């Protein structure tokens, strides 16, 4: 199977199950190539720990490869991978519940992701702009952090990954109505937090 046919097939829900079940090791690399950035991004947003996100991205694809025969095509490969990633993130957070470091922006100032973000926003950032960008990012994450775990998952998949609600429901194994409920409550909480911070 060529890369082109596989790359096309993995997005076709009707063909994907057969393709995934019979996929060889070499061909699986194409699936990794196609989805690795998104999976890493979801895990980083959920965990806010670059090392953990990198490790769990690998775990996600290894687990997907090992259980590829159980893939039934009820969701797209991308949604299936997001489901595995979210489950891994939940397990990780459960194991790190005590003492888990949660504040990316409360960590050391040496984290280059902050600088990368500021640099991307402005090719020639002044020190003041970098500080402002950090403060804004910190404020955004502080609000997202206050959401419940399920609200945060739905919020990240909806607004960071722009996934349709139906796909979010499949990825999180929730009813569509439940996804809507979480999203509605998350938006209400965000709006309230923004108003509160504006008052301050």
């Amino acid at each position, binding site marked *: 199977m060529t890369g082109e046919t596989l790359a096309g097939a993995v997005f076709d829900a009707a063909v994907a199950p057969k393709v995934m079940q019979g996929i060889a*090791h070499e061909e699986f690399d194409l699936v990794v190539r196609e989805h690795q950035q998104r999976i*890493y991004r979801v895990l980083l947003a959920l965990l806010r720990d670059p090392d953990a996100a990198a490790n769990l*991205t690998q775990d996600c694809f290894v687990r997907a*490869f090992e259980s590829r025969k159980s893939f039934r095509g009820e969701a797209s490969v991308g949604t299936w991978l997001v489901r595995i990633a979210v489950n891994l993130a939940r397990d990780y957070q459960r194991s790190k519940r005590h003492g888990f470091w949660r504040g990316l922006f409360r960590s050391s100032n040496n984290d280059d992701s902050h600088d990368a973000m500021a640099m*991307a926003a402005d090719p020639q950032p002044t020190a003041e702009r970098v500080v402002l960008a950090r403060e804004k990012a910190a404020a955004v994450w502080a609000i997202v952090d206050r959401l419940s775990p399920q609200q945060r998952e739905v919020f990240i998949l909806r607004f*960071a990954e722009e996934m349709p609600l139906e796909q979010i429901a499949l990825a999180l194994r929730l009813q569509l109505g*439940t996804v809507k*409920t979480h999203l*509605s*409550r998350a938006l209400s909480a965000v709006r309230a937090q923004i108003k509160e911070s504006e008052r301050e």
Partner: protein
Amino acid sequence: MSSRSDDLNLDEQSRLALTDESVNDFISSFRQGVHEQAQRPNSFWTAQRVRIGERTLKPKHGSLGWAIGSVFATAAVAIALLLSGPATTNTPVAQKVDDDLLMREVVEATEGTLPDALAPATLLANEVDRGLETAVQSKGATR
């Protein structure tokens, strides 16, 4: 707030989110921040793929490859033990006692009386010797 009212209000809230400048700004900042933080050089993605490839190639415990590997490892250990030189043997106590008994029997057999199996031959030889002596004595008497 009930789930039903949440469902009913979702469209309205989504519309509010889009029209509310602050919330809209918040969501776009959030999305931008998530994407920018997840940006990594190509070498990072390549290294990830290589590592995933290695891990998906690794044989599992219980597979044929693992079994073959175990056999080779066992054979290697056995060969190494054989090549490590002659082993120092500690003679067991029981074997030492047996050896002593055997040596004693050999000494007794060589130095002691003749075996019972040779007793008739000994008697015959003694009789011949006695007959010869008698013959010599009688010859001397007639002279």
